[in-house]
């Protein structure tokens, strides 16, 4: 990911900043247009960071990049767990589930937001930080 793109995403990545429409619809990641009523002019909305595991998968063969760029940090240590998390406020998002052995993760587990490294652009590049979840 290019540095300016990462920089623009910092509010969403660090603090789960999505959007809220005048009709009350919440969205994550933030949207320009309301997914429900198609209105524009949505406002930022910060999600609380609590949710449940809707489903998950265990990654044993990580994505690799021969140039060593854009390596997701967990890919250096396998296996790891990726989940679809349903936030308390409704929206769903995809995130790594940390602090849990793959065999211990269950659908329906309560999880909370944590702040971790997401990606490194090789040894010279910027470090991207952002949201992951861990069992409560």
């Amino acid at each position, binding site marked *: 990911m290019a540095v300016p793109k990462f920089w623009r995403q910092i509010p969403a990545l660090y603090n789960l900043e999505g959007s809220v429409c005048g009709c009350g619809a919440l969205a994550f990641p933030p949207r320009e247009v309301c997914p429900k009523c198609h209105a524009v002019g949505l406002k930022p909305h*910060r999600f609380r*960071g609590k949710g449940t595991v809707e489903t998950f998968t265990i990654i044993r063969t990580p994505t*690799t990049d021969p140039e060593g760029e854009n390596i997701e940090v967990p890919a250096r240590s*396998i296996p790891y767990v990726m989940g679809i998390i349903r936030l308390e406020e409704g929206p769903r998002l995809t995130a790594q589930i940390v602090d849990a052995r793959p065999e211990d993760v269950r659908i329906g587990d309560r999880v909370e937001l944590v*702040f*971790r*490294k*997401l990606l490194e652009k090789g040894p010279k590049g910027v470090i991207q930080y952002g949201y992951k979840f861990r069992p409560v």
Partner: protein
Amino acid sequence: MAGIISWGSYVPRYRIKVEEIASVWGMDPEKVKAGLRIQEKAVPDIDEDAATIAVECARNALAVDVPSDPASADSSSSSFPSSSVSSSSSSSLPSPLAEHIHAIYIGSESHPYAVKPTGTIVGEAIGVGNDYTTADFEFACKAGTAAMQAALAMVRSGMATFALAGGADTAQAAPGDPLEYTAAAGGAVFIIGKDHAVAEINHTLSFTSDTPDFWRRAHERYPSHGGPFTGEPAYFRHVIASTKKLMHVAGTTPSDYDHVVLHQPNGKFPARAAARLGFTREQMALGMLVPLIGNTYSGAAILGLANVLDNARPGQRVLLTSYGSGAGSDSFDITITDRIVPVQKQIRPLQSYIGRKTYLDYPAYLQKVRAIQHT
């Protein structure tokens, strides 16, 4: 009086036992454990670093409903609007308290970047806005207390309403080095303010010299050290001189303190220093965490302080002395106030992190600390 308004701590979930490391290198684990007085150490996950640790500590420190008792409501010297503080129970919520933090100082010997401040990552992640100053601190294991002294000075001078300071580390040790048994990960941060203190800082001072007992050259991955030279002329000289000087300035004697926290590179050094200074095992009990989590470097002494704050009672007096190789010690004379009681009920206690753990074998440990990795 200025002091600590809130605090937050964090220790990663993973642990490795002395036995596991000793078995790889053909060492007698009982001898290692007796020599270092340590059982196991905390290991960071592969996606954790000093910045992520500092962020979790800072979010914990902000997840409190800051005191709004009648005494503080009519306090004219504070610009802190206590009525605007929400009762946030989630560590992810931006706290109004954060908006009044005007300085962030994080100490570490494992800042993720050589050039690019850790403090800006923390500031963004806790939502302080843009009206704050930050710079990263580095002084081996005492960078966290050096940061706290600078934060206190900013608050006392009126340049900051609140200042957030502390230390976080993912300490590195070369495989096979004796440091491998102790080099650990963790951190603690403190919000310093002029009023509303849960722990008033009565005095703080330092004792510093140019003593090369432990160092890491630029671009080197692992530190080097002077072996036994890290003891008498380094740790003991500075810890003892700084602590004695503090008690002289404060007009106190060892028995005046309910809790004493000394930097803990292993279990043996602080116990020996305490004996020489006249402190008892009981005084040291709450602040002595190294046997269970290892040496968290910039986090070590202040994690001990965080555990004291988690458990201390109003009126108790606390002495803290850090030590950083290179070398220096910072000492603090602290008095716990009545305000700590409501904050203790909301703070995520350090014991909740120390108590939950997953043990690693040596190959899994090497993966976590990236000594070996999937390409």
